[in-house]
């Protein structure tokens, strides 16, 4: 029976066909499944990329809009950011973490930042859907004119998202790279000057246009904010017209003096004595620039810094063209028809006036009549803080609170180890020689070592003039026309008095070859302008006059003061930069936005 069954193969063809078909079907099904799976992976890959860039777009929108809000801050950017994000609760200090922490559950605020302030009223605060036009949204046709779908949502992942502010700190290391430890063995940290603001638990959901694929991430948004007041390079001594510890004045009867200064100007208080109170230097209520007798004083330069009062008497005009004017004192338009014109800004310090009523600041005063004071004049406040004041104190050598201070001039000149100018005395050949040695004089130097030397008939072009004695007087017949004193820089420890002078032009020196004058320290105070003094004779090429006698020298070069990178130039730049708060009094706010604790949900 069994053998018959085995030998009987009727219907075997059908069975074989069925087996073959089954095999083919299985094979085809497997291949189809694999191809389909492969295709699905490609689709998922594509959708993942779409959602990646979409989410990146949302985060870019969020961070850019917040960054704009912070950049608009005119005050403290941290407070501005807090205001932008908003919170019903005040920030409280958490002892455990050392942070200021608060809530910021204010959907209106965050939505307004994301979508722009103009659109906040059109935004549904729960879903952040908007019916506003021209919002950042996408419809099926990629038209950016109508917003209709919530292609993305920005909200919070927790019911009580927090917002914290802290000073960023970093670990300190020893020079050998090992962690720095304090006496107790604990690690030492230092502040970086950066304020770190963290918005916790921001949730960003991005939905594709078909609504079938949603990508959600949760992240902390971290802002790092650093405020910086830049100190601009003043350009060194070579960029100065006048650098004086004792100010400039034009007494009455000057009869229409015209003064032009091309280059930076620094004027100290009239007697060269700085006051010191409350940890800060001040001019002690003294005048630094007094213009009278129809004087027109025009300064062309980046910096004009006056450390004392500016007093403008009858018909005296002060013009500052192309730069800013910084005054550590009052600007007093005292006389009739006096005026102040400044194309840049006028800066006053933020501190109260020393010796004045509490809350009283330096400002422009107009006791005179028919003054010239344009409405367009911009008055601002310096933001030099106490740390920078201490730098200025140190720079000026005033930290010992001594009244017998060196002043700015000697700080500048002695920065490279030179002897201070007030060490010289009258007619001292040896001291003069020392000056020559000190400054590296070689040839063509004119040195005046005289008391109370008036400068009459003086063409001081291409000169660098040091005045350390009783000051100098530019007398009546001294200077005519505007061609005099081209390329002359005056560095003066004492007063510069300009009497009966028709016109005078000072411009910065940049030459390596110049003449200089040294006058010894005499009595400080008012200049002796008796007119009985002999003329200050000079010869740019050959003369050296000491006590009326001439000594010849050849081809002098005092280039070291102008060499880039020397300490004197550094001091100049530092003093000017700190005094004028840098290139402007505007604080630069650096912000960096990043994401931390990023994860998908």
């Amino acid at each position, binding site marked *: 029976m069994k053998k018959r069954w085995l*030998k*009987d*193969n009727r219907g*075997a*063809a*059908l069975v*074989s*066909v069925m087996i*073959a*078909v089954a095999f*083919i*079907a299985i094979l*085809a*099904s497997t*291949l*189809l499944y*694999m*191809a*389909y799976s*492969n*295709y699905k*992976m*490609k*689709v998922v*890959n*594509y959708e993942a*990329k*779409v959602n990646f*860039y*979409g989410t*990146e*777009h949302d985060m*870019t*929108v969020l*961070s*850019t*809009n917040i*960054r*704009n809000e912070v*950049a*608009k801050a005119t005050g403290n950017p941290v407070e501005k950011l807090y205001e932008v994000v908003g919170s019903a609760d005040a920030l409280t200090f958490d002892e455990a973490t050392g942070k200021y922490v608060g809530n910021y559950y204010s959907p209106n605020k965050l939505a307004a930042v994301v979508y*722009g*302030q*103009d659109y906040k009223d059109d935004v549904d605060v729960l879903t952040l859907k908007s019916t506003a036009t021209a919002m*950042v949204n*996408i419809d099926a*046709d*990629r*038209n*950016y*004119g109508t917003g209709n779908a919530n292609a993305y949502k920005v909200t919070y992942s927790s019911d009580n998202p927090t917002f914290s502010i802290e000073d960023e700190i970093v670990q300190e290391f020893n020079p050998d790279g090992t962690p720095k430890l304090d006496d107790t063995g604990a690690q030492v940290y230092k502040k970086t000057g950066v304020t770190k603001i963290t918005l916790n638990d921001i949730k960003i959901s991005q939905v594709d246009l078909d609504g079938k694929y949603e990508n959600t991430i949760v992240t902390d948004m971290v802002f790092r904010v650093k405020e910086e007041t830049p100190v601009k390079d003043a350009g060194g001594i070579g960029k100065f017209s006048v650098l004086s510890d004792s100010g400039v004045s034009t007494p009455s009867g000057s009869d229409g003096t015209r003064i032009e200064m091309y280059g930076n100007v620094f004027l100290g208080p009239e007697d060269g004595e700085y006051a010191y109170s409350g940890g800060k230097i001040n001019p002690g209520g003294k005048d630094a620039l007094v213009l009278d007798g129809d004087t027109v004083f025009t300064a062309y330069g980046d910096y004009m810094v006056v450390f004392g009062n500016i007093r403008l008497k009858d018909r005296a005009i002060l013009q500052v063209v192309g730069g800013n004017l910084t005054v550590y004192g009052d600007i007093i338009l005292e006389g009739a028809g006096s005026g102040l014109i400044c194309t840049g800004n006028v800066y006053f310090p933020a501190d109260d006036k020393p010796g004045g009523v509490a809350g009283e600041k330096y400002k422009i005063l107009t006791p005179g009549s028919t003054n010239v004071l344009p409405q367009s004049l911009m008055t601002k406040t310096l933001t030099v803080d106490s740390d920078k004041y201490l730098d200025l104190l140190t720079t000026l050598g005033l930290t010992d609170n001594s009244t017998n201070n060196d002043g700015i001039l000697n700080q500048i000149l002695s920065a490279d180890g030179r002897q201070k100018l007030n060490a010289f005395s009258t007619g001292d050949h040896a001291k003069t020689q020392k000056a020559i040695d000190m400054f590296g004089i070689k040839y063509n130097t004119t040195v005046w070592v005289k008391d109370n030397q008036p400068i009459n008939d003086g063409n001081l072009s291409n000169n660098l003039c040091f005045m350390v004695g009783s000051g100098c007087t530019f007398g009546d017949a001294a200077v005519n026309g505007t061609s005099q004193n081209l390329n002359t820089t005056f560095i003066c420890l004492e007063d510069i008095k300009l009497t009966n002078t028709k016109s005078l032009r000072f411009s910065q020196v940049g030459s390596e070859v110049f003449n200089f004058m040294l006058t010894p320290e005499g009595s400080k105070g008012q200049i002796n302008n008796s007119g009985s003094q002999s003329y200050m004779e000079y010869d740019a090429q050959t003369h050296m006059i000491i006590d009326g006698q001439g000594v010849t020298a050849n081809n002098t070069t005092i280039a070291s003061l102008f060499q880039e990178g020397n300490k004197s130039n550094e001091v100049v730049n530092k003093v000017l930069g700190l005094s004028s708060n840098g290139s402007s009094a505007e604080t630069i706010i650096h912000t960096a936005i990043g994401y931390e604790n990023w994860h998908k949900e």
Partner: protein
Amino acid sequence: MRKMMKKKAKGREKGFSLIEVLLAIVILGLVATPILQLFITSANISRNSKELLAATDVANITMEYVTGSAFDVSKTGVKAELMPDKDDPNKVATRIQGLSGSTCKTAEAPGAASIANHAQFESALKSASITATGTQAYYVDQSSYFGVAIFNVKYDNYMFDILMSFVPDKKDASDKFFIYDVTLDVYVMDEVTVTDGAGNETTEMRNFTTKLVSMTGAIANE
């Protein structure tokens, strides 16, 4: 006799009869044909997935280049990266990494004055009012819209077309930082039925016909 009958019986077991074979073939054909169609479908799916992958790569490379670029405040920054100039007339395509190699000429799109957004640019490209021979790029430069269309970009033995649109998004004039919204579409050529004036229909291959990939991103000025 019995032996002869057994032999005959055995002889009858060898092979299949013609009828059996024919029936088997018919059944096999009827059943296997749809099954074999699965193979064809699998092949099509594989081909499409490869094409999709290539298009995705093209979009990814282009988007990475675009979103990774730092642009200045003015629109010139975007244009400067993508617009042709006398020194580099092929700037558009040659800037996109991995897609260079062929000469690309760039010019203002015909009828650019009437194109103000992505959809209008796409419509103009589909309508064949803008055509190209070889790798070529056209741009539209309007006050609030800048678009670039690149024809016949070769990648991985495929030919794609790329349409990029840049729309500046700045909330107000005082904003220091702002964003360009970027839309990037990748297309393949496909047959299009065209009816002429006489009502005759013809088919032709046209660029920017079938959209494979579409992405949206943003770039912010630094």
